[in-house]
């Protein structure tokens, strides 16, 4: 199969969907000629024109709100938010407006929009360009949240997001934009709420999201060398969450570690760990482990920043201790 970058995969997903449905437009800062600072959208304006690939001023709450209104009236906007950190600027439009409209209207109004943004630290971009804020939106009923971990998932999940009649927030790992993975030429969509078991194992379950999927896979390699068999699960979407697959795996291995790049406190690791504890309690040999980003604003200094995100070695070490019954 051909291999393409995550960036290319996103670009293809948008182009294919825009060819299919004229109601779709894309809006954001420097998305047209510049194709975003990450160059993810290069070439789209040439094909679809500035009527459908719309450059905005630096007015995030404004264009987010306009996307909500456009979605309520027959358009299907894709909003490009340059950095996940800027989600704080659009929170009212996203959480008070987009998320609640369908419910508050008794099911009469729909808000089919996609907010594309990113997450991930260790780019030395400091505290306002490095956050992983997906837990914030996952907390709000009415928003779906997708976390692709490869070019393949980025394309399949984005296409599904675009066809969904609800607001969907999709976070790409900005460190992965240039990472290649096999992606079929033919069209495919990936369903929401269906986790992927990336590696079968029997001793411990590693649930990793987004950037942490690679970390879990590498940890599983390290563990294999020690004779520990780890099962690696990528939920792909956290809202909806494929509880059955995750809980089923934990019941099988009787140990689980949840790894996510958001802050650990009140975060995605807490939610998933709680569900495992709730539903697999009697099958577990040890308490469910959580590994999130350290609960500090992301520091700039390389000497500090690398300490804040879980590494394969740390995940493997936690798994070893778990399997030895030390925790």
């Amino acid at each position: 199969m051909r291999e393409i970058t995550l960036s290319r995969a996103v670009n293809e997903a948008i182009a294919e969907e825009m060819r299919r449905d004229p109601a779709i437009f894309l809006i954001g800062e420097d998305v047209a000629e510049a194709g975003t600072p990450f160059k993810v959208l290069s070439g789209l304006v040439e094909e679809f024109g500035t009527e459908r690939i719309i450059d905005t001023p630096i007015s995030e709450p404004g264009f987010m709100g306009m996307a909500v209104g456009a979605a309520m009236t027959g358009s299907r906007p894709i909003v490009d938010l340059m950095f996940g950190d800027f989600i704080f600027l659009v929170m009212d439009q996203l959480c008070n407006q987009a998320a609640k409209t369908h419910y508050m209207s008794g099911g009469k109004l729909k808000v089919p929009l996609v907010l594309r943004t990113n997450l991930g630290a260790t780019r030395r971009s400091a505290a306002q360009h490095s956050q992983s804020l997906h837990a914030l939106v996952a907390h709000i009923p009415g928003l779906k949240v997708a976390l692709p971990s490869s070019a393949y998932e980025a394309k399949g999940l984005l296409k599904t997001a675009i066809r969904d009649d609800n607001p969907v927030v999709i976070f790409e790992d900005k460190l992965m934009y240039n990472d290649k993975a096999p992606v079929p030429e033919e069209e495919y969509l990936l369903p929401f709420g269906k986790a992927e078991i990336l590696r079968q194992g029997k001793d411990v379950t590693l649930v990793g999201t987004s950037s942490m999927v690679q970390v879990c896979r590498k940890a599983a390699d390290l563990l294999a060398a020690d004779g520990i068999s780890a099962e690696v699960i990528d939920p792909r979407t956290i809202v909806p969450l494929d509880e059955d697959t995750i809980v089923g795996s934990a019941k099988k291995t009787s140990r689980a570690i949840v790894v996510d790049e958001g802050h650990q406190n009140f975060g995605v690791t807490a939610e998933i760990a709680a569900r495992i504890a709730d539903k697999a309690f009697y099958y577990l040999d040890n308490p469910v482990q959580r590994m999130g980003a350290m609960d500090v604003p992301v520091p700039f200094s390389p000497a500090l920043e690398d300490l804040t995100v879980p590494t394969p070695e740390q995940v493997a070490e936690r798994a070893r201790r778990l399997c030895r019954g030390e925790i």
Partner: protein
Amino acid sequence: MAARKSKANTEAYLRMYRQMARIRAFEDNANQLYLSAKMPGLTHMYSGQEAVAVGICEALTSDDKITSTHRGHGHCVAKGAEFRQMFCELLGKAEGYCRGKGGSMHIADQANGNLGANAIVGGSMGIATGSALTAKRQGTGHVTVCFFGDGATAQGVWYEVMNMAALWKLPIIYACENNGYSEYTKTAEIAAGSLTARAEAFGIDSFTVDGQDVLAVNDLAQTLVARCRKGEGPFFVELETYRYHGHHVGDINRDYYRTKDEEADWKKHRDPIVNFGKWLIGQKIVTPDELVSMDNEVRADAEAAVQYALEAPYPDVREVDMHVFAEGA
């Protein structure tokens, strides 16, 4: 150049020239550090805009406050910061102004009244206005200058705080550095109508000034600072300027949004440092040789500070979870 009684102000002129030369030297070194992969992360060069920061900050005392932007090294130098601590910050070293925690986009220099750079466009507009509110409530007489780019005028928060600043007559100057571009987009494509008219709509006295002319900037700044101290603020100033480098270091192929001719033209005809140097020589305030030796001295300082910062230690790993909360109860 705005004509002024020359000799009497010799000291101030030389200080402004020197500060502009220091900013240029700082940025040339920072750029080099980044290109040689010694400096991590994202950075935005201030080169070309020196007369804005220097002309304004020369009118302030160290008790007056500024807020800065992602393109903030110039503001920081102009407000009195030292090279060593700045380069240490850019390299994430313990001796940096923010102990390496902030980096290029977040340098703050409390002692000199710099409340910090900001990586959120428009992120400092509320902060600056709040600082002016403190000055008014406490009767300190301090003035706050809020630096931001033309692109930031698209942020709604600016209109909210301008309204309050005008209602409450706060001692603040909103200084918009219009360098013609918001990232990779021409200002004309992102700003409807006129920027000064927007501020005027709130009853705020607004001015446009040549941001390449340090004396013109300084003249206006002195007047507005004095008026702010008398309770006549707020003010809005649009400064016409230009950034020499890409939006960020790494924005190399930029022909698609601006021409090389345009860049060359600004550098050749409107360089704030060269033009001010010529004026100083013309007025017989300095000799060409004196300027050359000042430039050399400043460059040597910058290089020594880079060397110092490269060798300086990183923060101890225990600092990673320090400063999340302040100690006071």
